């Protein structure tokens, strides 16, 4: 092969190579950025939507949170019945009611029941309560007093909120370990404010390659203002969502 032929072939190969390099560089410059980095707009949108949706559901709860230091609350309802037939002297009922809590113990932040549990009535006033045991599962006890209005069998429904999920709570001064009259209760968990979302976001989004920070800013009325910081190669956001 002549030297000139080899030179010609080499030039052609170099030109072809340059063409492919050019197309590759264009890929790296434009779409390859997205190819190697997850598109971030929907991830950010998901965080914002989640906070707003959670706020809406939280607002739908008519009675505001008693204390934001507690993460969860359950509505607790129990019925006290009284056989008052033919005994007018005992119309007034006064006893210590002990009821099971129907709460999710996995959300309990403290191993000592006496520290964390709080009983609050529907006017948001804390009600003195005791526990039957300091270890889970434990029940709450509270003094109830009511009057049976007629000489018949009658009953009365009591409704409270039980608050839990506060690792830094300390035992209230009024609390002791006691026993009472056991009453079955019913009730369900209500939505906690969007702070729980922050823990969730910070756990899962770093796995997508993004840097995420999320924290509580303030409570505006019954709304929770959440600060979100999101940073990936293609998108940066730093703002608060309510």
């Amino acid at each position, binding site marked *: *092969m*002549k*030297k000139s032929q*080899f030179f010609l072939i*080499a030039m052609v*190969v170099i030109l*072809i*190579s340059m063409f*492919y*390099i050019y*197309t*590759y560089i*264009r*890929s790296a*410059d*434009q*779409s*390859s950025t*997205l*190819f190697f980095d997850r*598109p971030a707009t*929907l*991830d950010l*949108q*998901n*965080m914002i*939507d*989640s906070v707003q*949706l*959670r706020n809406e*559901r939280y607002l739908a709860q008519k009675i505001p949170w008693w204390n934001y230091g507690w993460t*969860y609350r359950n509505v607790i309802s129990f019925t006290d019945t009284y056989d008052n037939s033919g005994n007018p002297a005992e119309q007034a009922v006064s006893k210590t009611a002990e009821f099971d809590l129907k709460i*999710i113990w996995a*959300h309990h932040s403290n191993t000592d029941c006496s520290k964390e549990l709080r009983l609050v009535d529907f006017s948001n006033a804390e009600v003195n309560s005791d526990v039957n045991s300091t270890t889970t599962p434990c029940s709450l006890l509270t003094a109830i007093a009511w009057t049976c209005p007629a000489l018949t069998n009658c009953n009365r429904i009591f409704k409270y909120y039980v608050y839990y999920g506060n690792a830094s709570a300390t035992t209230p001064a009024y609390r002791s370990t006691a026993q009472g009259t056991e009453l079955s209760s019913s009730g*369900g*968990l209500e*939505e*906690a404010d*969007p702070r*729980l*979302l922050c823990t*969730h*976001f910070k*756990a*899962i989004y770093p*796995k*997508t390659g993004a840097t995420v920070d999320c924290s509580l800013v303030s409570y505006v009325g019954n709304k929770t203002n959440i600060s979100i910081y999101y940073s990936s190669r293609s998108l940066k956001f730093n703002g608060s969502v309510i």
Partner: protein
Amino acid sequence: MIDIFDSKKGFFFYVEIMLVVILAIIIWTQFPISQQSYLDLSAQENLRHLGYTYMKAIDVSGILPKYIHSANFSATNFTKLRFVVADSLPSDIIVYPEYIYNESLCYNSSGSAGACGLNTTSADTTTVLYTFTNSTEPITIKLYLKSAFGGRL
């Protein structure tokens, strides 16, 4: 003038050059050219938007809460929810939901708990996250989406 074939050294030099050129061509041809990768990415972005919009729609309309237990996530009806999602999206889209409970625990579409991430995904599968908040603990649903007519990338 000495021809390169005239010496053993020159011959091997020529062979090496050709091998390098062939190798370089093979590597370069495997790179996605910008136009095609752009189209593929656009198709995947459309899939992601479709998945996210759909998940949000069934959440706010109250369909999603029927299948996800508000207080006990492990009691969620995973299998039925998967069929609801698959039946609602176009039939040429293959979809697998995964439920992210926290950074280390996930449930697959059959409800089995385990490590996060599906092993059966192909290169053109895209994912989108939707966080479900109507429960005690937030749950993120990760949809694995793939067009049945895809196959590039």
